[in-house]
């Protein structure tokens, strides 16, 4: 079991910016899982590793999210999940893609695109009427 989960060093500014958006009330663990979820469909390799999350901080339900991510990207092969290194490498690669997606959305200085990303995600799931982006104007 790896002690540390890494991200690419180049995304450090992106991570800082996310912290700013959430008024520094969001942890690295949450940011990692968000990036992993956003990049789940297209894992990419990390070029230069940057210490990001300590494994011991992760709860069992959060580890389960990492295994789900790995199971999807390892061809639904449950046997591959026995190798923890492979599992966490896959999670880091998905997060790497996720950071890139977030980075693209953050290029807009008003973070409108990032907010739209969140809004789009929210819209995917059936819920009471959210008629426009007005509410999200206030989120930041």
């Amino acid at each position, binding site marked *: 079991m790896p002690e540390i989960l890494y991200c690419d060093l180049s995304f450090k500014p992106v991570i800082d910016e996310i912290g700013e*958006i*959430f*008024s520094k*009330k*969001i942890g690295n663990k*949450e940011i990692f*899982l*968000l990036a*992993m*979820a*956003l990049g*789940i469909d297209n894992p990419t390799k990390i070029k230069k590793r940057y210490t990001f999350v300590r494994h011991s901080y992760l709860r*069992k*339900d959060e*580890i*389960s*999210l990492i*295994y*789900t*991510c790995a*199971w*999807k990207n390892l061809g*639904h092969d*449950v*046997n591959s*999940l*026995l190798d923890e290194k492979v599992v966490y490498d896959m999670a880091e690669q998905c997060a790497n893609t996720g950071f890139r997606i977030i980075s693209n959305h953050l290029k807009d200085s008003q973070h409108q695109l990032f907010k739209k990303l*969140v809004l789009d*995600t*929210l819209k*995917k*799931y059936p*819920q*009471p009427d*959210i008629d426009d982006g007005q*509410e999200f104007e*206030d*989120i*930041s």
Partner: protein
Amino acid sequence: MRITKVTLKNYRQYQDCEYSFPTGAWDSHLFIGRNTRGKSNFLNSINWCLYNDEPHLKDKDQSLPISNTDLLKQCSDGDSVNVEVMVEIQDDDGLYIQYKRSADFSPADNSVGAKEKNNRLKVYRQKSDNRWEPYENQQAQTLVEMYFPHNIREIFFFNGELLNNYFTLSTSQRLKNTITVVSKIQMLEVIVDRLAKIHDKKMKELSRHSPNLKNIEKELEGLKLELDSVRNEFDEIDDQLTKANKEKIELDKELQSSVDIEADEKDIAEYKNKIEALAEMKKNKEIQFNHNAVEYIVLQYLHDDMEEFKSLIDDLRRKNQLPPPVNSELLEQVLNSGICKICNTDIDAKKREYISKLLKTINTSSDIVNMLMEQSNQLTSNLNSFKKIVKAKDTTLAEIQDMNKLINDYDLKIQELEKKVLNIPNREEIKAKRIRRRVVEDSIARNNRMYGVKQLEIEKLDELIAKKQEEFDKALKKQQIAGKFKVEMEFTEKLLKIAQRAKSELIEETRIEVQEKTKDHFLALNWMRKNYSDISLSKDYELNVIHRTGYSGIGSLSGSETALLTLSYILALHELSNLSSPLIIDTPTYNMDGENLTNFSNVLSEISKSKQIILLLTPKEFRNELENVFTPRLTTLKYIESENNSSVLKEI
């Protein structure tokens, strides 16, 4: 007055000795004795007899007892030596007085000194009918003071040292005291003291009866002034209240139908405050929503895969491709103990075999199964969490929407109110009047309070003034009584001042007389007049001699000149005191010789024409110059010799 006889019994080196002073044309008596023969002790014996002290003791004599030491040594237990000194005088009326002091001395326990007892002075006075009347205690002492005043004894009995250094050793105060005594103002001093006491007494009586009317009057005036001041303040408050009430009525009328702009403005301010508070709450909700959103996004993106993954695991389980979830540790404990942990009964061989088989199956299942079971449980948990987070997210979002609605509502109300206020004609005027009315209302409330306070103050001051007025009336009556004491006190004060002035004037007169008579005596000597022109005794009682060259100072006088100046001064005091007491001088010419000694001897012998002179001389002093002057004028010339360790007088 002259001394006629002195007898000494067991006094120091004198065991039994009598000095007699016969009369003649001249009254000069010379006693010559070597050192330690008893010249100074002769002078001491007179002092002891009259005053019970010995001022002319030498250091070596200090520790020796007054009684003759040879006799004291001979004393056995219980014995004592009786010492007696008798001084006999003849007053100006030719009558005799005998002063006798005696005391008993016994050896001291520590063999040093002696114990004294029965010390007493007795005086015998010859009456005109030749009867001798005895006196003791205070009466005896009064007879001493009559002829030999204790506080000026230094002008009767003295020695050469004093003669040479009198003005150096004496302080101005000492000279003043002597002159005061000589001034014979004792009675006047008694009068001054008595008058001062009476004056004090009258003062006390006056202060007891005098009620300090002025102070009471002053206090009364102060209270009345204070009352006036409070009344003025009260009137002012009353005036202000009347004006304010009138103004309030007018303002009420004017503002009766006007819109309450202030109330509207207050509402606007309140709405703004509410919006501010809502904005803060909304911000916190949005942070909460953002957290929910992140969690939601993660679970939303993984939702389908989680369902699929779980479904796979469930399929494996349904197809028995996964062993049932069994607690292998519990099974091992059952096998080890032989007791079922659930029903608490012994397990038989059949059951034991089943459990062993089950445990084997579990142990042989792959790690992947355990991992899948774990994931299955967590996936279930995550899918349930997703449902909850959707609800929480929606709730938070609804709350935010409610807040937005409220903020919009408040904003609309603010706009409406602002529009209403802006459309009011003369709104600034109405606003100003409303503010003014509030100020007036505050003023009325404040003045109403002060009105009550001042009313109480006036009542209190009225009471105080009434009491003080009563006190003043009583004091006025008392003062009339005190008037009598005041007259007496003022009369006493006048008398006291007169007596004090008389005393000062008398002393001053005496000082001038002392100065003049000292000058007369001193400059009467031709050889002095050659050198000195004047003598002065200042108001500060500083004696000064003016040299004919204008130089002043006693320090410029030679030894014999100083002695003559002292003698002149003492003679002046003798004359002014009207005391005819003799002069007894111990070693008067010790430091003189030649012309000075002749001159000094001449002066002394001249004095002996009218005053008894007793000189105690050493053989060295009895030189030709002195002998030549005195021999034709001598009344007595005797040697003090030592015989069997006792001093005796021998004729020459």
